[in-house]
């Protein structure tokens, strides 16, 4: 870890301006992603701008849905009664993540901006297009058991977002509020926040250099209330997903009126599946319908030698999640 200066911002403007003035600076919230990567010399920042005292807090119901401040902690949001009741998939995605210690420290904004667990990315001895553009991607022929099968490119096949929360947020059409150094706010649906790797895997989101993530808003819907997050991994706790599914269904008169489907652990970004949703809406819930949806969701998958299992695992995860939420 290199030496850095530390600055605690009192106002959002101070934070964003400081960031704008210093290209090598980084915001720090809980630090559970950032400090790890700095200790590994994967990220080197000469300044850390502490945003923890900024007023981006609170979990409250608004007319647009549930608004969660970006600096709320994972554990607090995961256990918040409004979240548990109205957005079970969000609560589950948070409480099934990481460990209790990490959840107490880590923020919602930091979670959305966490970085890949690709082992090559995290070890500077390896080449890696995401870390050092143009150096190559050893994961293509190497150890990619944990990496993506959807949205990949020849440049990068990492699950760029390896976590859980954004998968639930992606299923439930959450909207992110961003604020820049001019104090201007903009809203970006989470489905358009993450970028596919293409030939520039180093560019992971649409967040501008001077932008802060200030809040997440999740529309309140029937499907959100009847939602579920299912996570599969070999270790029961404290492990990233091999595959996960966030689903929400609105069933009326025995027919699915609305369906929300996103997959985790399999896409280079949290993977919303309109294909699966299309197969579900208008049908009566049944295992056959769920299976058809799952097949549709994985149709575009490009599995490799060590992650081919993810196709079946993700399909089954989705079928299971849909069956459980429909039950």
């Amino acid at each position, binding site marked *: 870890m290199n030496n850095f200066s530390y600055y605690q911002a009192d106002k959002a403007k101070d934070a964003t301006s400081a960031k704008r003035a210093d290209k090598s600076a980084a915001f720090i919230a809980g630090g559970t992603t950032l400090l790890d990567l700095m200790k590994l010399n994967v990220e080197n920042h000469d300044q850390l701008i502490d945003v923890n005292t900024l007023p981006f807090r609170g979990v409250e119901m608004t007319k647009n849905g549930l608004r969660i401040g970006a600096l709320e902690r994972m554990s607090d949001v995961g256990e918040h009664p409004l979240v548990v009741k109205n957005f079970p998939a969000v609560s589950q995605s948070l409480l099934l993540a990481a460990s209790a210690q990490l959840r107490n420290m880590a923020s919602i904004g930091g979670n959305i901006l966490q970085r890949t667990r690709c082992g090559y990315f995290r*070890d500077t*001895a*390896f080449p890696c297009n995401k870390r050092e553009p143009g150096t190559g991607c050893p994961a293509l022929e190497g150890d990619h058991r944990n990496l993506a099968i959807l949205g990949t490119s020849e440049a990068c096949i990492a699950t760029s977002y390896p976590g859980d929360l954004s998968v639930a947020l992606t299923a439930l059409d959450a909207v992110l509020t961003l604020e820049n150094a001019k104090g201007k706010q903009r809203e970006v649906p989470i489905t358009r926040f993450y970028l596919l790797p293409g030939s520039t895997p180093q560019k992971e989101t649409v967040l501008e250099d001077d932008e802060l993530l200030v809040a997440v808003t999740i529309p309140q819907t029937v499907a959100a209330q009847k939602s579920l997050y299912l996570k599969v991994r*070999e*270790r029961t706790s404290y492990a990233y997903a091999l595959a996960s599914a966030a689903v929400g269904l609105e069933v009326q008169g025995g027919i699915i009126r609305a369906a929300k489907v996103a997959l985790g652990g399999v896409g280079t970004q949290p993977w919303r599946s309109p294909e699966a949703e299309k197969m579900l809406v208008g049908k009566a819930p049944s295992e056959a319908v769920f299976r058809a949806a799952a097949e549709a969701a994985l149709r575009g998958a490009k599995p490799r030698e060590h992650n081919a*299992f993810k196709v079946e695992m993700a399909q089954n995860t989705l079928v299971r999640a849909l069956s459980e939420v429909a039950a």
Partner: protein
Amino acid sequence: METNQTKNAPTNVVGKPLDRVDGPAKVTGAARYSAEISVPGTVYGVLKTSTIAKGRITSIDTSRAAKEPGIITILTHENLPKPAKTPQQVEKWRAAQSYLPMQDAQVQYAGQPVALVVADTLERATQAAALINVTYQAEAPIDSFHDPKAELFDPQKIQQGKKDSHVVRGNPQQAFDGAAIRHEATYVHAINHHSPMEPAATLAVWEGADKLTVYESSQNVTMHQGALADLLGMPREQIRVVTKYIGGGFGCKGSFWPHTILTVLAAKAVNRPVKLALTRQQMFTGVGHREDQEQTLKMGTTADGKLVSLVHTKRATTSPWDNYTESNGKILDMLYACPNYSTTYELARANVMTSVWMRAPGEAPGSFALESSLDDVANQLGLDPLEIRLRNYADYDHSNGKPWSSKSLKQCYARGAELFGWDKRQAKPGQNRRGRLLVGHGMATASYPVHSSQGTARVRLFADGHAVVEAGATDLGTGTYTVMTQVSADALGLAPEKIRFELGDTRLPTAPGSGGSVAAGTVASSIMAAAEDVWDKVVKMAVADKKSPLYKAKPADVKVELGRMFLTKDPQKGETLVAALVRSGQPDIEGSGTGKYGAGYEEKNFGQNGADPNNDSKEKKTGGHSMHSFGAHFCEVEVDPDLGTVRITRWVGVHGAGTVLNLKTATSQMIGGAIYGIGAALMEETHRDASFARYTNADLAGYHIPVNADIPEIKVEFVPESDPYINYLGVKGIGELGMVGVAAAVGNAIFNATGRRLRHLPITPDKVLEALRQPA
């Protein structure tokens, strides 16, 4: 003096579930682990390790690093003080790895130390290490025995020359070819890393040119002292190695690794105490691992399931210099009554560091092959897994023809089956469902040998009724402090609070390290021998003391039990050791002794042939007894057929391991054994990239060990067992026993649940899904 009798002495605190005596120090932070110790003037060392796995260093640019504040020195192969000898020059090098990095520009494995920075703070040293720019001329490394460039060879000897690479008994191939049932299968074991909580650490303190103290995270201070003496060309007595607490070792701290001598040499270079701890990442390339390996086992049985032949081969990766490989064959040779057996080891050199003993080395992976194949045969013949084991029960050790010193395996099977409810098991695989989940029950046998060992101890009894007991042993965190306090308390008839037991220092009487499950048996024996020395001295004082009830008795007529001396013929007549000591006016009295464990103890007390009036078994072909502990594991798993996940839902382990010194710590150890066995079975795996020969998941987020949520309640029981041959107290080691057979029990339960046999560890969801796609 040396103990020469076997006692069946009454006990007071031995066996009781005493709380750990080191518990309060640990939970309050008063206990200092090696990296937490500082002496005045301590500075910090940090290693820089190689990014490539094979090649040469062409340049090391330290200019940027050297400009950092607080940097004291930067050592590379160009300026590191030379040791008197490298390990390869030492005649009988005692550690697994014989290669010492930073002697020249060669790089032979990824993560090999290439520079050592010393600075006034850890942070500064860490940052400077990152700023060193090393350029290499890289060559394509060999990754493992699977690498097309790798060549398998016959090492002739394995385990530092201690064992043969071929062992044959009878006519195994012929017997296999003629067997009614022939089963052949290949088993794969992933690379595993010990991953103790406490990283390896060294604090090296030179006092002048010829006196060295090293605070090391060592499972064996004597070994570390000896290795340092060899490398430095110094007499052992000039080197002191101290290890008061260890935060887990699992074998990796029981061998000597480069960081220790590099730190010692750095301390010499800067003429100040240097402390160096490996980072978690460096723990994956700094202290060995369990090697990647493949075993093929041909099992031949009669039509009713009696073993006639076991033909075993193992292929594994080793380092460019050493022929270390776990001896998997041992357990196949002795566990059952099988007349024909062979094992063959083949190794291939790759650019990896030398692997090393880890958690039941040999027995753990060996039993996975044996116990899985036997389960297959049982299923094929429609036999209960327990029944096939009973049909093959070994009444004596078929590997050497010797009778067992004790064996309670039948009792373990019976009690385990009862506790588990084995009779309710569905024999037909794939029949037992709980909702969507498939439920399976599996079992396997555990066994671990009593390795012969010896050690010394000192006991000082004070007239005020307390005692200091010393032995240079170590406590891995498993309870040595506690159980030796109990042994000492009973030997002197004192309460445990009155005993101070000291360990972990080469200044103390020499004792074996914690490894190979020898510590408890040996150190307990040594303490008893030293206590006997005290007894003898006090008895002599008493019989010469007019005021003693034993005045004028013959010492030979006096017996000592629980700290009280009495006439064997008139037990009423006697007094305590302390009472006699007080009257003597002497403030204290000291005794010392040598204790033996295993074959040496038996020979000493029973003669070459282990002559035992009660045992003249027919099978016995050679002198002495074969000494092993045994046990049985029973488990239940739930397999999710859609997601491939396996969860352990019930576990029962019943063991026969001689005298249990402390029911609480012993039970904890057996639980721990089951847990790390479950880790190896279901999740532990280090991935090495084939083209870079470098690990891709070298941290504890990527290398999965079980968490609480993975582990159900584990029921452990010990069956009563007394063994007169192994040591004074009849103690058998339990450090490794609890893990042996665990992976097989899990695999057997998965087979029972799914009808699919998984032979590749760890059994992760991807492999389960793949297996379920295949026809049962």
